[in-house]
Each structure stands twice: as structure tokens, then as C-alpha cells.
């Protein structure tokens, strides 16, 4: 580890160029990466490119009818931001449950997404908010809808030399909920997490996504469609939607929990989220 080169670029372009080299990784808050390095998961690591503090990455700003959340925004920054709380409550709530206070002060939303853990807490929230991932590389910028971004645990569509610049969300007021179950009340990796966002543009829209129930975060289209086609959100409707997500969940048993528990909890969490949104 002592032979790792540490690069502190002053521009996004420099950062991208540095990341073109094989076995160089971007680091921001480091709350996942440092732990993985210490656990020997990057035996060939040659360099770290510190993108924390690069100015364009650290702000939450509006751009015409969109909100752009810089990838370097910390969890606490997001959880406390008035615009996010008012417009994207699912995301504010998700960010406020990550790790513990100290971790939320350093962990970034870009890191949470790029780390691509199936248990990453902000990912389901971003799914439900139909976020586009803004990517910058040596050859320019591109955008990918978040639902298409993840390939498998820890694997994404980011190419060498690319970093996440931010997340683009439509400036549209949503109501939302984020619920998670962990092994304790803080510092807990989710056994299962669930985000629900809903908005009305003349008709009701629902977006539902859950984590830790499949190799990547799962969007629950069937339940969304069922809710959108339902007349009202009564107890029967909620119960049926809960059944549907429970079917959608494809969890495994691991150190944190069991397949059976996760499947059943998918339904319980959706029920609770919908009850809270009623």
C-alpha cells in the first residue's frame, strides 16, 4: 500500500487523464474504498486520484428544469439540503441512514453509486427519482439512466478515465419514503432497503426500488404499474402491491439475513412506505 501514487488533480480533465492509467482509482470520501484496500481487494493498485474538493462536484444546483447533484456531495450535505428534502424526500431520507454521522460527513453520493453495492442506500432512491448519471471522461460527457448503470455487484458501465460528475433529476416535486432494515440502528449495511417516490402530473406516478434483494438494485415495475392503475391507495391495494414486490424480490441468504426474511420484508417495507405516503 505504501507504493501507491497519490494524485490530487486540480481539474476534472486532469482527473480523467490520471484515471486512464491501469490500476488507478478515483477516491472521494474513501469510506468504502479505504476499507476495501485494507482488506486486500486491490492487490495491484498503483494510484489513487483524489477527486474530493474539485469544485464542480460539491454543489447541488438547479439548471432550468433539472436539479444537478454533484457526485462529491456528502451524505450529510444531501440529507440537510432544503431543496432535496422538499423535492426528493426519498433521497434525503436514504442519505441520512447511511453508516453513522462521521461516515455521512465523508461519504459521497458519487462514491455510493460508483461502489455499486447492491445494498447502497442512495441507489434505490435515485432509481425512484429517475436520475440520469452524468459521466465525464477524457473524450467528453455522456449520460446514462441510473437503471442502466449497474452490471453486477461492484461493476458499472464506467469506462477507464471516466468519473461520475453528478446526478440529474427532473425539478419536480415528489413525495417519497425510504426504509431500511439493518443489523443494528447505526453503522448497518442494509439487509434490505426500499425507496418509493410518487408525484402527480395529472395522474399518479409511482416509482419503487429496493436493494439487497438481487445482484443489483431492483426496480419494481409490476408494482408501480399496479399502483398507477389502481383507483385509490386503500388497504387492499397496498396489500396487493406488497405481495407483488415480495414476488419481485430475488434475494439470497448471506451473513446479514436470509432469503425468506428479505422476501417477506420487501412486502412489509412497501406497505409501510405506502401507508406513510397516503
Amino acid at each position, binding site marked *: 500500500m505504501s507504493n501507491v501514487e497519490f494524485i490530487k488533480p486540480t481539474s476534472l480533465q486532469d482527473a480523467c487523464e490520471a484515471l486512464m492509467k491501469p490500476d488507478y482509482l478515483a477516491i472521494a470520501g474513501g469510506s468504502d474504498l479505504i476499507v476495501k484496500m485494507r*482488506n486486500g481487494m486491490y492487490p495491484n493498485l498503483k494510484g489513487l486520484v483524489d477527486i474530493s474538493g474539485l469544485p464542480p462536484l460539491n454543489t447541488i444546483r438547479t439548471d432550468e428544469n433539472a436539479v444537478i447533484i454533484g457526485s462529491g456531495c456528502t451524505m450529510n450535505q444531501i440529507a440537510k439540503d432544503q431543496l432535496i428534502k422538499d423535492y426528493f424526500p426519498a433521497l434525503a431520507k436514504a442519505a441520512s441512514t447511511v453508516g453513522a454521522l462521521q461516515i455521512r460527513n465523508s461519504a459521497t453520493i458519487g462514491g455510493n453509486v460508483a461502489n455499486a453495492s447492491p445494498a447502497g442506500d442512495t441507489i434505490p432512491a435515485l432509481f425512484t427519482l429517475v436520475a440520469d448519471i452524468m459521466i465525464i471522461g477524457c473524450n467528453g460527457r455522456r449520460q446514462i439512466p441510473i437503471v442502466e448503470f449497474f452490471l453486477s455487484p461492484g461493476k458499472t458501465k464506467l469506462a477507464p478515465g471516466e468519473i461520475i460528475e453528478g446526478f440529474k433529476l427532473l425539478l419536480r416535486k415528489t413525495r417519497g419514503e425510504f426504509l431500511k432494515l439493518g443489523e443494528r440502528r447505526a453503522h448497518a449495511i442494509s439487509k434490505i432497503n426500499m425507496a418509493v417516490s410518487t408525484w402527480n402530473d395529472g395522474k399518479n406516478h409511482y416509482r419503487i426500488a429496493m436493494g439487497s434483494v438481487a445482484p443489483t438494485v431492483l426496480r419494481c415495475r409490476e408494482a408501480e404499474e399496479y399502483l398507477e392503475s389502481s383507483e385509490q391507495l386503500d388497504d387492499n391495494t397496498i396489500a396487493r402491491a406488497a405481495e407483488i414486490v415480495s414476488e419481485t424480490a430475488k434475494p439470497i441468504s448471506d*451473513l446479514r439475513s*436470509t432469503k425468506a*426474511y428479505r422476501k417477506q420484508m420487501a412486502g*412489509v417495507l412497501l406497505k409501510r412506505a405506502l401507508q406513510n405516503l397516503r
Partner: protein
Amino acid sequence: MPVVGKSMPRKDALDKLRGLSRYIDDYNFSDILHVTTVRSPHAYGRLNGVDKSAAEKMAGVVGVITADQVPGKNSVPLVFDDEPFLAQGYVRFHGEPVALVVAESYEVAQAAAALVKLDIEPLKPVLGIRESIEESAPKIYGNDNVFSRYNVEKGNAEEAMKSAAHVFEQEYETPYQEHAYLETNGVIAVPGNEGTMTVYGTMQCPFYVHDAVAQALGRERNQVKIVQTTTGGGFGGKEDFPSLVAGHAAIVAQLFNRPAKLIYKREEDIIASSKRHPGLIKMKIGTDDKGKITAALIDYYVDGGAYATLTPIVLWRGTVHALGPYECDHVHIKSWGVATNKVPCGAYRGFGSPQVIFAGESMMDEIATELNIDPVEIRRINCYKVGSSTATSQIIDQSCGLMETLEKASEKADWAEKWQRPEQRSGVMRKGVGVSTVYYGVGLGAGGKHLDRVGTSMTIMKDGSVHCAIGNVEMGQGARTVLAQIAADALGAPYELVNVVEADTSLVPDSGPTVASRTTFMSGNSLMLAAEQLRPRLLQVAADLLGAPVIDEVELVDGKAFLKSQPEGKQIGFRELAEKLYAYRLMPSAFGWFIAPDSSYDKETGQGNAYFVYSYCTNIAEVEVDMETGEYRVTRITSAHDMGKAINPQQVEGQIEGGTLQGMGYATMEEIRHDADGRMLNNAFATYILPTTEDTPELDPIIVEHAYDRGPYGAKGFGEVPLMGVAPAIANAIYNATGVRIRRLPIKPEKILGLDK
């Protein structure tokens, strides 16, 4: 008693608060070598060889040490001496030390360790209690995989069971528990002149380390010195294990004649160091119609892991305590400590008791439920009082505050208001309340009585300050503070002038281990014996200065001497007394040597006075359970403890609060997992889940004082007790809330909902 019974500030508090305390990793010596350990990746296998060549070629590597290079005997001295310092011939658990890589820097040592190639032919491991005791199991220890077994037989339980009005039979299981002390294991060994060796490090039992280093090096005890450094927690985890770590560093220091530093990473500390034994307890209890226990048959198994280490002693304590603090004329307890291919288990706060207490206290709750008796009431019916006879037919002759703890805790927790049957509760969020009662034999007891003595060297310095070297250690439990209070009052010295220093084997003879809640009682008594010798000399000086003809007319309290007849008259300060003591050339030092009160034990029947005195406690846990997710919150734990005398009430409350939280972790979330090949899966704090402050319930400690006439100022010992009965109190509260009985710890939401498979 100017300071005994008062919450004096801790001697070590300010330095710790300011970050000034030096722990072992803060120490350095010139020319120091760094050591890292190469460990077995297999749970069981034949060790055919170690290829050191690649590692030895790396720049900065000084050498790679294997079993054949151990200068002395390659075995850690303890009970059976069956554990090697470095594996030889076989590896017997995942994480077992095989080789030591020695380098000029820590980083090089780490990198080179990866290049050491172990030639191991894997064998099929034995991985659990049930598997180990099967007839057909491969034999990994002796001819039956049993390290040790005990039999406690009082009356005729088998016969009495036949005539019992009600018979209850259940099995309970308990998991590993990792100590998770803040400071990992670590030592520095420094070679000196004429073949001497000094080892500094974090530890609980410097005299065990003394034995181990002398044996590893083949040196005399007077060539080896062990100095305990400020220790960041032990909880039993630094009872036997530092012997191995110190042995490794000392072997390296001797072979290269240079200081050697060996500090564990958290992951290797968890994978390699001792844990609480997993337990399997089969209980069959007979009662009369009123809930009085009439017969008890208990089988108790613990998973000792790959080497015996402390298993025989851990098992003995658990065996003796297996029925709990309940009168019964017909008891038969059998126990087995079995071998498996997993990390050797050892001491952890409670020492073989929390396992049987979980079983026994859950069983009491089950009996109460079946017989429709309030769980507090069934304990009133059965609990020990003065005059009761234990499972080993010992008569409790004094200092038994159990009933008072039961009454005080249930009153404070408002038990009568809160307790109702589970079927009367409804809704998604359900509250529940549960109780447990515990007794605990203080000290090493009849099983370890040959070690149960302790020395103190006390010196009044020229300036009046008092230096006390003791045979027990401070490991965060507050020993230096509590013992300074005892010494100050026994001597008549002001508390500020008394200092009790960290243990050093060159200052005091072998005083046994710092375990078994024995320090306040044992070292406290030896300090009193030393003070008893010094006090007449101080009084003599005071009598001269006050013009009293005999010392009987003089009093010395809190650093002030005066005539008994004139308490408001002339006073001589402690510093002046010391000055005169030296001027008169009186001996300013004394040695206290205290031998524990007697205990006894019959090998065949297990009958006798197992421990010289017992401490007692009642825990009442309150929970709130979410019936849809199975998640629950422990909202409050009320614990009343009889420790004889609270020398320092704040320290006592601190012990209750800390121990209760550890007990809550044991009950609710802590668990070590292995894969099918016996590899430990969660040797990190990301995956070994401990409670955080967010999980902490309201804690309500209550002090009950039933003095013990042999204790210093009436004190017994109780440091372990706060952990011991918390798990069943919570399990009983969960039952009370939900109607679901959990017989296998930890109590996970998945189990409450029946979704744990």
C-alpha cells in the same frame, strides 16, 4: 472510612481523557524488528512444510521463523500445555500461527508474509459440538474428542424426577462471543544482558505470560520480566492469549538479539484470539405443583476449539453454576468440553456461566409460563437465601442479597404493573418484560484454589507518597482506583498520595491471574495485610510527635494523626509522619500475602464448598417488538447487584452499565460464522456486529450491599456479573411480548418471525 464507599475519580481518567496514556503500540525501541504472523488458511490439515525462500529474499526481511526454531519448548503453558507456539506437523484451526516473518518494517513484514508458502494437505475438519461427540466422528483429541468432563451429583435426581409433579425438558444453544476490546493484542520483547528478556504488552495475566516466555525461550523465571502496559480492555480475552503473542515476540527477540514488536491487526485478533465458548445445554427440570424445583438433570457441552487452553476451568465454573441460584435437593449435572477444528475458546466475562444462565433462566420462565406463575414469584419460591444449600451442597452462610436484588429491581422496574401474559398483548408494536436472577462464585474457587493467592508490596516513600505494587492488573476495570481507596483507608493515608502501579513480575511474586472478579477482594485483602504491618510504625511516630505514651491513644485517618482524646486538637500530617519514619530508620515497606478463604471439591461427586462466597444479581429487561419485521428495541434494563460493598459506587455503576451492554450484544446480535470448511467468515467489525450507542437502552443500576466478613470493607467481587444474566432477561422479555420462545442465541428478527432458515 474517608474514601471507601465514595466515588473517587479514577487515577487513570485524566491521562486517558487527554490522550496521554501510552499503549503498547505507542512504545518504541531503537533497532527494533517488526513481526507478522503467517496463519493457516485451513481448519485442519497435515503441515508438510513451509517454503520461506521467496519471503527471505525480499529486501528488508530479516528471517522467517518456524516451529523448529523455537529455542525452548514449543508449547504454551496453561492447563494441558497442548497448544504449540507455532504449528508443527498439523494445523488445527483456520488462523493458527505457522510462521513468523521478521523484517525491518511493519509494511515489509506484511508483504513478505504473503510470500511464505505453506504446504498443507487439508483434512476433513470437525466443526461443531454435536458433530464432535458423535461415535463416528474423526478423533482430533484423545479417543473421544473430550478435553475434560465433570460430574456434580447431589441426592438422586434421576429417581426424584420420576415423582415430580411436572417435568420440563428443553435444549438451548449459545454462540461465540468476541471480546472486541478497543486495543488489539500486542507486545514488544526486549533482550537484555546475560540472557534476560523483558516483555512489555497489553495483558490481563502477566504471570501466565511470565511462564510462557520462560518456557518458549528455555530461560529461568529470574531472567524473564513481564511489564504490563496500559491495557485497553481485556474482558477475559487477554487472559491466556497474550502468552502466545509474547512468546512469539520473545522468540524473535532472542533469535536475532534485537527488540521485536508484534501488534495484531483487528482481523487477525478476531480470527486467532480466544472467544466465549459456544454452548449446548440440555435441561430437564422437575417441580411440584407450586413451582418449587424438586429435581434437575443438566447436560452441558462447550465447544473448546482446537486446543484445550482454558476449557477445563471454564467448563468447571459453568458446571457448578448450571442450575442457577435455586434450592434443589436432587441435582445431577454432567458436562463435556469438546474439541473441534476452530479457534480455541477461553475466558470471557462470566467464564462458562452465561451459557448455562441463558438456559436455566429461560427454563425458569418456561416453567413459570406452564404453571401460570409470575416469573418473579417463581424465583421468590426457589431463590437462595442465607441457609440455602447449593448444587454442590454448600450452605450459603452469609452475604446473600439475592432476594433483596429481586425485590429492588422488580420494584424499580415496576414489574407488577408491566408484566402480563403474552396472549393479553396485541398490536404491531408489543412491549414485553423479562427477568433473570444470577449467582456467581467469586474468585478461582475450588477448581483453581492452588492459584488463589496474591501479593502486594507497599512502600511509604520519603515524601509520604505511597507506592503499591500489586499482583493484579488494571485493564480498564478501575482496579488501580478501587485498590488505592482500600489502601488509603487501611493505612490512614490520603487518597491522593496513594498510587497503585501497573503489574510487573519483578515487583511481586506470582499472584495468579486477573480474572474471576477476584481483584478487589484478593488484592484488596493483600493491601490491607501490608497496611496492617505499616500502620503501627506510623502510629509509633505519631505517638512520639503527639506526646502519647502508647500508640493505642493515637488515631490516624485520612492522612492526619491526632490524639483520640482530642480529635479537634493537634494534628500531624502524613508527610511529616513519613519524614519521621525515615528519620527513625523504621522499615517503610511491607509485604502483604493473602490466601483465599478455603474451598473444596470432590472429584467424583462434584460436592463441596465450590467458592468461598457468591455475588448475586437480578436483571429486568424491557423490550418493544415490531411484530411485522421482528425488529425490536431493548428499551430499559434494571439491574440490582449485591457485591458486598461498593468501594467506589460510580465504578460499580460503570461496571453494571458496560457489562449489561456486552450482555445485550450477546443476546441480540453477536455471532461468529464459519463456512462449510471451517473458515471464519466475519473477523472484522463490519461483519461482527456489536451494539452501538444507538442501540443502548436506558440502564438503571442498583447497588445492594450484603457485606462479606472476609472481604475488604465487606466487598466481594462482581465485575463479570453484569453481563451474565442479560441474555435470558431479554429472551424472556421477547417471549413476554410476542409469545415466541428463542432457545438459540442471538435473538435475531429473523428468528422471531421464523424466517431464519
